């Protein structure tokens, strides 16, 4: 990705999963951006990027939902998203979804301004984080879409490595899907269970107290499985983890 000059103002697209299940992580992302002197705008009219219907074969429904977001981000300010998967939907798939539609140009313009949160923190803001937390061992779960649609691989680990008291132990199979896959988890519950089972075993193998991730679909899946299996490790969104570290709790 090509870095852009640091803007004074950014838009924040929170995503529906953050909205419903991880609002504190969403808020932490906003505060991280604010702590760098940015004005963060959260358009209240936002809902979802449209990915669930898009991936299920219902493109017209996906288009309707995506279209409802288009006018919320006027101007040129970057749009920061605390999810690699939703950011990937907007950046990579919106241009296809709107192809041939009257508002295609607008969709392409909006898509081009989308950044995944850690990508933005590293490449645009070049943040330096001071760790005030207790020593802890963590591992990083890379979401498939962050890695392969947004090209976010090293950024979150770069941020975690800035934290003096955080020991990052990488997963053996960091690149392997956790088995969420949206409706896949309920269409193929047994395969999904086997996949998250392997992921949980990998996490346990690191001895990490926390597994940090940038995507809430994966987090719902992984934390749900960790809890159900009464495992010691806990899952957390990277925005919330970073915020807690720099505030010392």
């Amino acid at each position, binding site marked *: 990705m090509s870095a852009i000059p640091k803007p004074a103002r950014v838009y924040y697209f929170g995503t529906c999963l953050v909205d419903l299940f991880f609002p504190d992580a969403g*808020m932490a992302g906003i505060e991280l951006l604010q702590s760098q002197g940015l004005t963060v705008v959260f358009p209240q009219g936002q809902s979802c990027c449209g990915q669930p219907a898009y991936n299920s074969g219902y493109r017209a*429904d996906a288009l309707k*939902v995506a279209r409802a977001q288009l006018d919320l981000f006027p101007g040129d300010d970057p749009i920061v998203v605390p999810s690699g998967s939703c950011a990937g939907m907007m950046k990579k798939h919106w241009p296809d979804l709107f192809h041939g539609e009257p508002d295609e140009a607008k969709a392409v313009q909006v898509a081009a301004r989308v950044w995944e949160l850690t990508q933005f923190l590293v490449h645009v803001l070049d943040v330096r984080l001071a760790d005030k937390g207790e020593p802890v061992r963590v591992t990083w779960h890379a979401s498939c879409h962050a890695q392969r649609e947004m090209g976010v691989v090293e950024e979150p680990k770069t941020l975690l490595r800035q934290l003096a008291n955080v020991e990052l132990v990488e997963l053996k199979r960091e690149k392997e899907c956790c088995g969420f896959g*949206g409706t896949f988890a309920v269409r193929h519950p047994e395969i999904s*269970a*086997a996949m998250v089972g392997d992921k949980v075993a990998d996490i346990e193998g690191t001895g990490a107290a926390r597994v940090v991730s940038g995507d809430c679909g994966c987090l719902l899946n992984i934390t749900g499985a960790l809890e159900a299996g009464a495992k010691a490790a806990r899952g957390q969104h990277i925005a919330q983890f970073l915020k807690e570290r720099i505030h010392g709790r």
Partner: protein
Amino acid sequence: MDGNAPDFAAASRTALADPQLRGNFRRAMDGLMSKRAAQFADAGEWTGVRALAASVRLRALSKLPELLETLEENCTRNGITVHWAATTAEANAIALDILHRVDAKLVVKGKSMVTEEMHLNAVLEKDGIEVLESDLGEYIVQLDGTMPSHIIMPAIHLNTKQIAHLFKRKIKDAESREDAAYLTDLARRVLRAKFQAADVGMSGVNAAVAETGTLCLIENEGNGRMCTTVPPVHIAFMGLEKVVEKLEDVPPVISLLPRSATGQPITTYVNMISGPRRPGEKDGPREVHLVILDNGRSSIYADPELRDTLRCIRCGACMNHCPVYTKVGGHAYEAPYPGPIGKILVPQIEGLEKRGAMPHACTMCNACVEICPVKIPIVEIMGRLRVEAVKPSGAVKDGGAKASRTEAMVWSGWAAMNASPTAYRVATLAMSKLGNAAPSSLPMLREWTNVRTKPRFAGRTLHDLTRAKGVPDV
């Protein structure tokens, strides 16, 4: 689901319940992935050679009709008899005709996925012709009475112990020894006698060169060379997409294929077959036939987006890297082509009525797309097939077969909720306040909570928090 449709969900449950199978795949695929990664440690080289191979395949597809004509002309000039088969039934009939004409009793075969697609072995056996697979992996699955579980490594689902047990049961005088070298040697001795006695040898084709009329066949065991040179008649089978334009297009393909598949720099054998034995030559078959199979490929070719499916060089790397395939193995798909490429190719060949569930057996993680040596947009095609299954454009056989009024209503309701800020606010408020009371026995939650705790609604949404904290709206 109709009575004939393979039930992937049920088959995968069976596979997942077999710890031996899961262990075999996990170990094998982990090994293959690291071997492949070692081959492409130089990212720049990978980018370059991959772009080259993709462009070779794209160029071939861009002039496919013309190249196929040129291929036929040049093969014919080389003395290779070219046959065209629109369907697998036609291809089988062509094979039987040749076999009957030469009064064949015994056929030896090298690896060929197209013949798996044709169920050729069953057809030949029904006709009373003995057919023997000579690729070690194929030989093992044939002995075992099963089908290949991987397009490159057909017996990858079995370990040495299981193979030793199988050989002991099926091969006369076999010793019970879990020793790969012994088992290979045993198979070799059985096969060697058959190569010498066979009336016809059969093979696949990795690439057919239009400008020279050459059939390229890569392999590791020498069985391909035996099948194509020892018996008096050789019949090669290829899907019509396997043609490349020039001889110089072959190296990128035959280099990337084994590097992607098994992490080998090159296969042990590279066969370039350019016709039957010529006067004065001391070896080679008397007749060489090439059967070119369509079986739905020309329909795939007709759609510019789906056409990319035909770039495939059948390396199988997508299987090795697929988190679903590595859990359930190849048999669960009950298809000649399992894994990611199977999930896009088989529904297009066999239709969405029978195979409409296949494109959903995928988390869309894109691991396959990342490593595909010819850059097939597998997941995009997967998404397109999901659309075709419910909203047909006419491009795919049995389009609309999975259309469901209930599902359509659910998505339409979802869209109405998410496209209106007021409706969204009301719905998220209701979910936040009441969602946690939903019983785990509800459909979807039931599947979810088998191995996970229920997702917990946070009570206040990010919309609520941002309003409370005065985060600007515009």
